[in-house]
């Protein structure tokens, strides 16, 4: 195992009786990146995070945080880790500032000095002296991030962090995460929201039924497979003609139009192939009103990969 990974697990497993919540997970989160841990609800994302943070014991396997083995060096490892697990919880009768003060007391001495800057960073400085019982869910989420920042973290572990945020809050949150990564911090973000992960993260692991089924950079995960979306009023004829084109591996009718998957061994890029296909269709007398080279979205790959959705389809 290498210290260049902010999080490394090997064979990590958690069983609850007969049920396996986390199944032999080997995870590698590169340092200085935003890493998405992506999976449907109940896939074991939170359980993995809880094991990493020492909230529950692993049944088997090993873990390292920031190069340190946990649980044996848990205290030293977690000193530079900030985390939000599920919905951040607070003492409702204390103010926001007092809640941060309680957690700062459990951290190093300097943590108290970071309370103000953390509150300002999440935009809660002016509401910090109000009781938590007056905070909205979105404000509690932001205060949870502020609490995680008290550690001056090298690694932030955020479990479904945009739950409860409105669209503006989500947009703001994305910017904040990218800002943290730009400062050299690592962010491990678990989510079932594909769009969120795709917009924030550099790398992703896809988890289903407790197993990591694929991990890598977003580009790796989406693959180099290229497609072209074609719009035509004569879809059936277009489909039939394209079957004979040398660049085309398959053509399928979708709600957006005809999705053409190119042969990976075709010698030119998608743009040139699109131009060639356009010429081919026009010369055949077919009107084309849309022609757009595309890459498969993370959502499409996710749907392909996760067994649950595969079964449902």
């Amino acid at each position, binding site marked *: 195992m290498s210290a260049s990974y902010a999080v490394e697990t090997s064979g990590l497993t958690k069983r609850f009786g007969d049920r396996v919540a986390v199944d032999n997970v080997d995870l590698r989160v590169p340092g200085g990146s935003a890493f998405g841990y992506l999976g449907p609800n109940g896939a074991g994302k939170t359980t993995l995070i809880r094991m990493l*943070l020492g*909230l529950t014991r692993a049944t088997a396997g090993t873990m390292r945080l920031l190069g340190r083995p946990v649980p044996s060096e848990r205290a030293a490892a977690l000193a530079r*880790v900030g985390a939000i697990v599920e919905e951040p919880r607070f003492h409702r009768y204390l103010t926001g500032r007092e809640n941060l*003060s309680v957690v700062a007391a*459990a951290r190093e001495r300097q943590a108290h000095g970071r309370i103000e800057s953390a509150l300002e960073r999440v935009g809660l400085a002016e509401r910090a002296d109000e009781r938590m019982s007056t905070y909205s869910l979105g404000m509690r989420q932001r205060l949870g991030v502020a609490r995680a920042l008290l*550690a001056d973290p090298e690694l932030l572990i955020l479990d479904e962090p945009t739950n409860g945020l409105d669209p503006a809050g989500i947009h703001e949150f994305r910017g904040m995460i990218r800002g943290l990564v730009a400062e050299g911090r690592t962010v491990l973000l678990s989510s079932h929201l594909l769009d969120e992960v795709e917009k924030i993260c550099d790398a992703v692991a896809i988890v289903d039924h407790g197993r990591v089924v694929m991990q890598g950079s977003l580009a790796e995960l989406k693959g180099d497979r290229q497609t072209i979306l074609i719009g035509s009023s004569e879809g059936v004829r277009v489909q039939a003609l394209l079957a004979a084109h040398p660049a085309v591996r398959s053509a399928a009718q979708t709600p957006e139009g005809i999705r053409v998957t190119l042969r990976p061994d075709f010698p030119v890029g998608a743009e040139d192939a699109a131009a060639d296909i356009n010429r081919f269709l026009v010369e055949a007398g077919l009107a084309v009103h849309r022609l757009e080279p595309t890459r498969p979205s993370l959502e499409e790959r996710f749907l392909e990969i996760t067994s649950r959705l595969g079964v449902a389809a």
Partner: protein
Amino acid sequence: MSAASLASLPAQSEAQFRRLVGAELLKLRRRRTLLVASVALIVAPMVVSFIALAILHAANPAKYGPAGGVDNLGGALRLLTQIGTVAAVLIGVNAGGGDLGAGVFRELVVTGRSRLALFAARIPGGLALLLPFVAVAFAIAATASVALAGRGQAPGAGLLLEYAGWVGLMTTLAFLLALGVSSLLDSRATSIGVLLAWQLALAPLLLQTGKLDPVLLGAALKRLEPSAGRASISLMTAILLIVVWTIVPLAAGAWRTRTRDA
């Protein structure tokens, strides 16, 4: 790590622990209902009982003696230990189960701080809230028992000191028992129910039978009560009982805090 930095480790740990204790005290003293209950159950009974005794004496001196004196001090402090024990239980349960009940325990665990340190900080943190109330209540009782005593009936300094120690011990033990039990159980409501049923009903009932005195904390505390009558157990047994009744619930609470899923 250099020798200098190694030498500074105990001081750092001590300062760290003080911060944890301060946080525990903050969490408790900001609970308004707990503060009101503590005043009502610890301080108010002393004020009310001596005012009532003074009024009775003023109204009918022939029937009711002076409000102060050794007997009334003993009576007031027995009341303090009985009702004040309820406040001690409430403070102990909130100290032991407050973080868990609010879901904040896991937020403290993810800081990497030792769970045992988190547990241990609850003890001085809770006592820092409880004992000042007890001290104020005792001061009221002591002052009133001296100021309102008849000729030659005022308690001496030695007796007052003995009572101070006994009241402090009673309330501290009730707090520690509650802290241990509430750290062991998942529910504050259950902890309060179990502890109050034990303190107010079951333990006094068992004490009355006299058959279980060698294992009951109440018998040990009765043995140590100043001006108490005939004792059913020896001083050594009493001390041993107090040690066991302190260590066992605290050890159980510490174990559960260390091993539970947060």
